[in-house]
């Protein structure tokens, strides 16, 4: 399969038609989708219409966007006009958004062709895609293993060649961890650089949309297409997305890169740690100054995250009550109707987090829980700031292990939560981070290296990621 960049070039030059490219990918989907289950919905008809429109534009001589004719898979928590959007939850079954998310609009304007809506953990709550109401997605590298989550469908779609690029959302690692487990590139941009308008909220102060791709360059291009100010999102930063593509071949000579001590010890599988040390050594060999650095507050990240994210989620998800849209379980009174609808519509993990969040915000507990979590957030930011005074970028594993098997962690929520131990602090700080494949673990499954940078430090982050990618080829 070709890269998004090659496809766009071929479509722009008239060498290949968008329809031809689409058919190739629809073929891949029909071949393997039944075993992978990356999609909640394959939007064949809309995709054909969109590809035809691109081809007509080519025939007329343009203008063509940078992703002309490139198939893209969209996580099912991004609103798509006229196309069902479910968050992999029964509670949203049948709901069809009357609008596109800003990122979807921007992809379409760039010429990209949406091929489907990808499976996910319900409302993005999970790390394995096992929490989908519509059944799990399987890891294309080994169907007995999870693809990670919550954006497991989007990661698997790219890994399986269903689309060269896809979009996910990352609240605590939901792009980077599945990218690592599926052996693809995944980017969580700086909070505020990519619009959240049309992204169905989980933890609003943590959520960020980002791409999956097979290469760092493709991911960079997608970030540039979807990023930049959106007046419809009050938390959107005023500037354009950092111009990362033009710096991908800058190399790392002279860069200062810190290996995060707290993410290299206990809880990290030895084969994963070994690959990350190899990455650090290679970066040093390529001319970077590499040192270990302690970022002490990240160890509190998991605890703080499991107060902040559920607290916001408990409020964000209160709108699903059967009154206006989605599932409704009828009952004699409005109160009972709401209760029965929510009981039937939400899965166990969603209910667990609503309970956690409601508790954390309750009078008498707010200061001890939510209030303290906000203080920890400040501490994490402070410790990262201290590290970034000495380093341009940081390095860690993305996930403590390679892809695990179905059912391995579903019995014990804590063991599932620990999967995000390396990714969560970034969201709490609002910083960018990305996962880039860096070889295989002892089980032959992909290992992801996580590159972290300060807010709006995407150029440094992409330079390091591109260098790591280059070292493997």
């Amino acid at each position, binding site marked *: 399969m070709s890269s998004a960049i090659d496809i766009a070039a071929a479509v722009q030059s008239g060498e290949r038609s968008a329809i031809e490219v689409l058919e190739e990918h629809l073929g891949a989907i029909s071949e393997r989708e039944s075993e992978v289950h990356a999609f909640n919905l394959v939007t064949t008809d809309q995709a054909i219409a969109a590809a035809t429109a691109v081809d007509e534009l080519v025939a007329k001589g343009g203008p063509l966007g940078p992703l002309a004719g490139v198939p893209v898979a969209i996580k099912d928590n*991004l*609103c798509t006009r006229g196309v069902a*959007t479910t*968050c992999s939850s029964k509670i*949203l079954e049948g*709901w069809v*958004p*009357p*609008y596109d*998310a800003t990122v979807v609009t921007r992809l379409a304007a760039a010429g990209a062709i949406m091929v489907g809506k990808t499976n996910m953990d319900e409302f993005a709550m999970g790390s394995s895609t096992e929490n989908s109401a519509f059944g799990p997605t399987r890891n294309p590298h080994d169907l007995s293993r999870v693809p990670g989550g919550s954006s497991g469908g989007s990661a698997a779609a790219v890994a399986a060649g269903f689309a060269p690029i896809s979009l996910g959302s990352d609240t605590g690692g939901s792009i980077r961890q599945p990218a690592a487990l599926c052996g693809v590139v995944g980017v969580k941009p700086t909070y505020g650089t990519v619009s*959240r*308008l*049309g*992204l*169905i*909220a989980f*933890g*609003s*102060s943590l959520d960020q949309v980002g791409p999956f791709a097979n290469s760092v360059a493709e991911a960079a291009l997608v970030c540039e297409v979807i990023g930049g100010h959106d*007046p*419809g*999102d*009050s*938390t959107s930063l005023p500037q354009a997305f950092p111009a990362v593509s033009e710096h991908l071949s800058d190399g790392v000579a002279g860069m200062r890169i810190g290996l995060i001590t707290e993410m290299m010890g206990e809880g990290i599988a030895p084969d994963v740690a070994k690959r990350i040390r190899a990455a650090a050594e290679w970066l040093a060999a390529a001319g970077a100054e590499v040192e270990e650095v302690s970022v002490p507050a990240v160890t509190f990240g998991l605890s703080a995250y499991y107060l902040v994210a559920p*607290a*916001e989620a*408990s*409020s964000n998800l*209160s*709108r699903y*009550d059967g*009154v*206006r*849209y989605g599932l409704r379980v009828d009952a004699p*009174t*409005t*109160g009972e109707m*709401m209760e029965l609808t929510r009981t039937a519509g939400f899965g166990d993990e969603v209910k667990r987090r609503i309970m956690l969040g*409601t508790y954390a*915000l*309750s*009078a008498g507990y*707010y200061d001890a829980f*939510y209030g303290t979590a906000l203080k920890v957030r400040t501490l994490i930011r402070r410790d990262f700031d201290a590290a970034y005074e000495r380093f341009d970028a940081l390095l860690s594993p993305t996930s403590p292990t390679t892809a695990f098997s179905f059912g391995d962690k579903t019995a014990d929520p804590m063991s599932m939560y620990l999967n995000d131990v390396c990714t969560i602090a970034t969201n709490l700080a609002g910083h960018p981070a990305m996962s880039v494949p860096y070889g295989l673990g002892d089980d032959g499954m992909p290992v992801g290296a996580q590159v972290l940078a300060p807010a709006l430090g995407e150029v440094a982050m992409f330079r390091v990621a591109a260098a790591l990618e280059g070292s493997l080829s």
Partner: protein
Amino acid sequence: MSIDLSVWEIVIGLEVHTELATRTKLFCSAPNEFGGEPNTNIDPLTLGLPGSLPVLNEQAVELAIRVGLALNCTIDRSVFSRKNYFYPDQPTNYQISQFDLPINGEGWLELPSGKVIGIERAHLEEDTGKSTHVGGGGRIHDATYSLVDYNRAGVPLLEIVGRPDLRSGDEARAYVSELRAILVAVGASDGKMEEGSLRVDCNVSVRKHGDAELGTRCEIKNINSLRSLGRAVDYEAERQIDMILAGERIEQQTRHWNEDEGRTLKLRSKEQADDYRYFPEPDLVGLAPSQEWIDRVREALPILPAARRHRLCERSGADTAQAALIVERGLDDLCLAALDCGADPSRTITHAEHNLSDPKALELDPEMFAKLTKMDADGDLSSTQTKTVLAELVQLGGDPGEIAEAHGFKAMDSGELDAVVDQLIAENPEQWQRFCEGDPKISGFFVGKVMKATQGQADGKVVAGLLADRVPNAAKE
């Protein structure tokens, strides 16, 4: 009303919600309009659709600042929070409101009486939709079905929280009336209580004079007019005093004002505080209006009712009650303009107070009004004639001199009037006897007769004087 106010003190604090007169809603571009077919002024955010996000309406902020400045509040850096509770007319099941950091802090408002009432805060928040419960008792619990109209959901509200500085139903009414005048003056609201543009929640408690502690308060909702406010306060105070006198404990409650029955009824207990799980709204950023913006708003503020009252009193010698009424009717500018044209100050105020309630009076030509007050003061017209000319001036305009002439008005010669008075006294000896004995009711009899005989050309005050002159000296002692 059987409250012994020498013993009991009524303590009232008001929370007034006003809908801000913006073009669009607080966080989206759906129109902010009253009325309309149900669910027509809506958009994705109004319905709380997944993926929708709020964007703060700058016009609403500007109106909030205007009100804040008019109420002498501090304008502060503020933060929006979510107030979480489940109710079908709240589309997201949380209300975006300002909690611990409101846009307008500590301020005050001066009543026409001169009393100053503290303002605790005035913060921005969004309105809810409207539910209609059909069947059963018309309540959400027993309805057959419920309908929700989201046209109002998301309309910007400013909640103005007053200090418990009010001490009577009348004072509470004066406060709301003054607040409404300010809101209308700064263009923040149309002030229509009947359309819900202005909603008053009233906290009432009672204590004995000299008590340091406030009594347990009850909050009264559903007050839809100034009249209801006064009645509700009086009823509620009496209810609480009766309970205390009967040795009962006042429970902190939310109570509903029933206009038809003229009493308050318990809605729910407030002994246990509701837990709204407030937390900062993560979809919005902090609001910090620049000093430059605040200064610009301040400079553009119109002159406010209190200042207008003071100005009128100073220029015309009107008392506070007269000034309050004239400013409320918006006639102060006319009065001041007439004074500039040399109007008689006392007659100007008297006419504005008593004879200019017609809204058309606002269009009166100040020069002609001034001329009339001078004719009146100089005795060129009787008071009845003056009223007639003024009424015509208001309705049709023109020159008061010409109007008086057209009617054949001129003040009567005193000789003519003396003759009329003497004749009437002779014709009505019995009534005259009573007049001389000091019966106050009989004076009107003679004045009326004189007016009739002179076809209204006599001046009532002059007639009264002539009658008094004719009372024998013996009767006066």
